[in-house]
């Protein structure tokens, strides 16, 4: 296509083109020579002055939800690490292997929403491995919530808790549902290793979307359709994708304060030559 259109260019244009190409050659020669100069610099010199240590511990979407470790040469074909972390914020910036640490998503609940989701090639990163309290003993939460060490709660009404303040600072002020929700609307009272929806279905921590979806139908439908949330891997419909589950982005215990927890951004671009600061950008602002 391109070829044809170039050949059919009127002759005047061809002449002009030839001229410019000649110019191009001259300029390129200048450029090419400069290229040669650097090329002779030993490869190691390329990175002079910027060999900051490689960050190997980082987090995915929200801080504290999914910590990951950089592994060198995880994709030997390209010499890729599994991921690269930001040197300033420790956030994951880049995936060498988008399916690192994922498992097939498994069957999705049948919701008659008209979306023809294709979950055959859907992968997720299991949540259980990332929950502090789940990994305190061999039996997960049941290490303590075995019915004896911590008794099964008799009532489903809110009460002050002497535990888990790092997860829910004040259980009487749970930041989800504007006072209408209590822990046991989501956590099974009898099997603490499981979540539970309002119909009494037990749901594993690895599939929080089934729980959230039971109350947030609209967001869930969008999520299934690939509009809400995030999917990485291939772009083609029906291709292999890693899906982010709800709790990788939303902290279920604080969504009322922040739907998505604020975080520090990556550094701004370097200022253009001659610009000393970016104060001009703030003129007329910040006078609230």
């Amino acid at each position, binding site marked *: 296509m391109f070829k044809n259109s170039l050949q059919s260019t009127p002759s005047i244009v061809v002449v*002009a083109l030839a001229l410019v*190409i000649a110019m191009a050659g001259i300029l390129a020669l200048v450029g090419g020579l400069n290229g040669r100069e650097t090329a*002779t610099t030993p490869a190691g010199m390329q990175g002079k002055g910027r060999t900051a240590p490689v960050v190997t511990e980082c987090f995915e979407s929200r801080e504290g939800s999914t910590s990951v470790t950089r592994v060198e040469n995880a994709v030997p074909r390209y010499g890729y690490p599994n991921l690269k972390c930001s040197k300033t914020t420790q956030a994951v910036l880049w995936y060498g292997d988008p399916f690192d640490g994922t498992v097939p998503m498994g069957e999705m609940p049948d919701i008659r929403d008209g979306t023809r989701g294709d979950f055959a090639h859907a992968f997720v990163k299991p949540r259980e491995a990332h929950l502090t309290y789940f990994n305190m003993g061999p039996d997960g939460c049941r290490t303590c919530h075995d019915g004896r060490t911590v008794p099964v709660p008799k009532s489903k009404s809110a009460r002050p808790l002497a535990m888990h303040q790092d997860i829910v600072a004040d259980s009487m002020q749970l930041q989800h549902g504007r006072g209408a929700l209590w822990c046991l609307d989501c956590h099974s009272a009898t099997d603490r290793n499981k979540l539970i929806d309002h119909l009494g279905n037990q749901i594993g921590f690895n599939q929080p979307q089934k729980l959230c979806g039971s109350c947030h139908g609209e967001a869930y439908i969008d999520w299934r359709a690939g509009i809400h949330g995030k999917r990485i891997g291939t*772009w083609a419909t029906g291709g292999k994708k890693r899906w982010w589950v709800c709790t990788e*982005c939303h902290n279920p215990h604080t969504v009322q304060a922040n739907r998505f927890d604020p975080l520090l951004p990556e550094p701004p671009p370097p200022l253009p030559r001659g610009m000393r600061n970016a104060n001009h950008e703030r003129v007329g602002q910040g006078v609230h």
Partner: protein
Amino acid sequence: MSEAERKTDDDLHDGNSSRRDFLRNLGIAGASALISAGAPSESMANAPDTVSETSVQEFLQGHFVLMSEEEKKEAIARLEKRYSVQYSKKTTVADTPAPEGVLFGYALDIAKCIGCRRCVHACVEENNQSRGEHAIQWIQVMKIPKGNFSFSADRLDKGYPENSAVGDYGVQVGGNAYTPAGGLSTAHAQNYYAADEAVPDKDFFYVPVQCQQCEKPPCVKACPVRATFRDENGIVLIDYNWCIGCRMCQLACPYGARRFNWGEPELPAEEMNPKTHYFGNRPRMRGVMEKCTFCVQRTREGRNPACLEACPVGARKFGNLLDPESDVRKIIATKRVFRFKEEMGTYPKFFYYIG
């Protein structure tokens, strides 16, 4: 002097001065070419290293698109060899062809974007931009006061629906010059907001801008040598070896999406991404243009762009505009979608929406 006369006079004068400029510039270029012309042969004789040999051959090569399969293979082998030496690691330069029946499109949710700039830096990791003094970034995130955005829902259906041979995308250009449906003003946009304050700032929203992959790309029209062109998937690409560095495309682009290598790119070997594409992320040289290609080295092989994969809030969606089941098409069908600077008539395939 009559109006008509003055006009001719001006025209003449302009004509003269530009011709003079042209000749003068040619003189300068010619002279510098002369000065340096002796250098390569001299140094070539006593420095027979891969890199200098290949860079001379590289600059003699034709436009990649017009090469025969044989020539392409040679050009690629030459580049792979040079990069592998230069960055001391095995580097591949692919020329994976454009997949058939695909028109690439991008959608970005400005209601979700928190301005964290992870996309900006993911792009740099992936696409081998220059670091250091001549740092280049292809994505710029604007922090814009919330009041700058007006979008009148009742006028949304009053534009020109865009039909095409493959179907109605349902995209409205949103009013026209006389009755605009509203839009985005970039007044008071901050591009350098500091990294020591948490985002998002509740009084602002954030708009990342990168190459919009226009269906009518002004940059392609402006390029005097066709070094930049639109591929079969609708992606605007650059043959870096054919680019003469005249920067006409940069002036033509209404989105400020094109970047020029003013200096020799500084790319630390340990940070260099060795999986490259000829028209994509292979290391560039001084004096050439570059810009976002939606990660052609990934997308032609089926993978999502790096900026999408880095976005923590899932504000970025990518896919085939010809596939009604793709994420982008579903967004266009169900969300409030607009294009940036649509009054320019560039028809971007980058859509902003409010999710």
